[in-house]
């Protein structure tokens, strides 16, 4: 894969990720984010303004980490660099869900010193519902160094 090969509409498939109480607890330990949103079912039976979750939810940033993994796994073999990621959470993810990130190239841009690929990203659950959306930017340096 090279910068010149890529075109708008090209897709990137990410890895499926099975969400469980154990995976959420592991993410607590790895991120040091022990917010009771992710640990305490009794607390999550309460009301959060207009929102009721009904039980613990996965960290939104677990989506972020999964998208970032997809982007780096796609970029690194081509000597490209994951430079930016912006995400928004649109639906909570709960234990028992399976989530899968994906990307679609929207444009390419050359600047004075480098070359860039813009990618729309999203994460879907097992019911094909969007749980996260966003945009990523990947640099394809002119001196591409492929490991």
């Amino acid at each position, binding site marked *: 894969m090279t910068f010149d090969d890529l075109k708008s509409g090209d897709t990137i498939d990410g*890895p499926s*990720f099975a969400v469980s109480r154990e*995976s959420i607890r*592991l*993410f*607590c*330990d*790895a*991120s*040091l*984010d*022990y*917010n*009771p*949103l992710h640990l305490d079912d009794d*607390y999550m039976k309460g009301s*959060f*303004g*207009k929102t009721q979750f009904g039980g613990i939810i996965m*960290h*939104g*940033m*677990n989506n*972020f*980490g*999964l998208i*970032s*993994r997809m982007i*780096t*796994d796609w970029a*690194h073999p081509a*000597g490209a*660099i*994951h*430079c*930016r*990621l*912006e*995400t*928004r*959470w649109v639906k909570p993810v709960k234990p028992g869900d399976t989530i899968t990130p994906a990307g679609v190239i929207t444009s390419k841009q050359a600047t004075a010193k480098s070359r860039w690929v813009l990618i729309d990203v999203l994460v879907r659950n097992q019911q094909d519902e969007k749980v996260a959306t*966003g945009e990523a930017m990947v640099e394809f340096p002119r001196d591409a*160094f492929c*490991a």
Partner: protein
Amino acid sequence: MPPQAFETDFWKDANLRKSWDEIIPGEPRQTLPYVLTREAIALYCKSVGETNPIYVDEAFAKTTRYGGLIAPPSIHILLMFACTPADDWMRSPGTVNAGQSWSYHLPARPNDIIRLEARALDKFIKRERLFVVHDNVFFNQHSEVICSGRGWTIRPM
């Protein structure tokens, strides 16, 4: 497992943390330096299923453009909590993350001493929800920027 001194009970210091009303946009947050270890990187990789050997296999990593082990770009997820004290308002129980954007400059590496400069940038009310925007820059021990980012959180009522 978390570092020994890290308080995992986020209720414990809840009364010390600033509420939405008390957060002042522009005011720096208190931060702490943090030494990023290979073990912390490996645990983070495990939590999101990272299998790229550049994060864990030193011999392989030496053959890459980075010349050695690096952390995944999204390691800032860990650094946000590792570099802030127990009374930081990001730990207030019920804080809901609405979205984040991050730009990456240099990779973090094992044994880097990470420093964070952070502040609330803005706060507002939308659809009866209390929002705070936070912005953050992580530096290594050479004062080089690792990454910078901004996040939107919904504060507990």
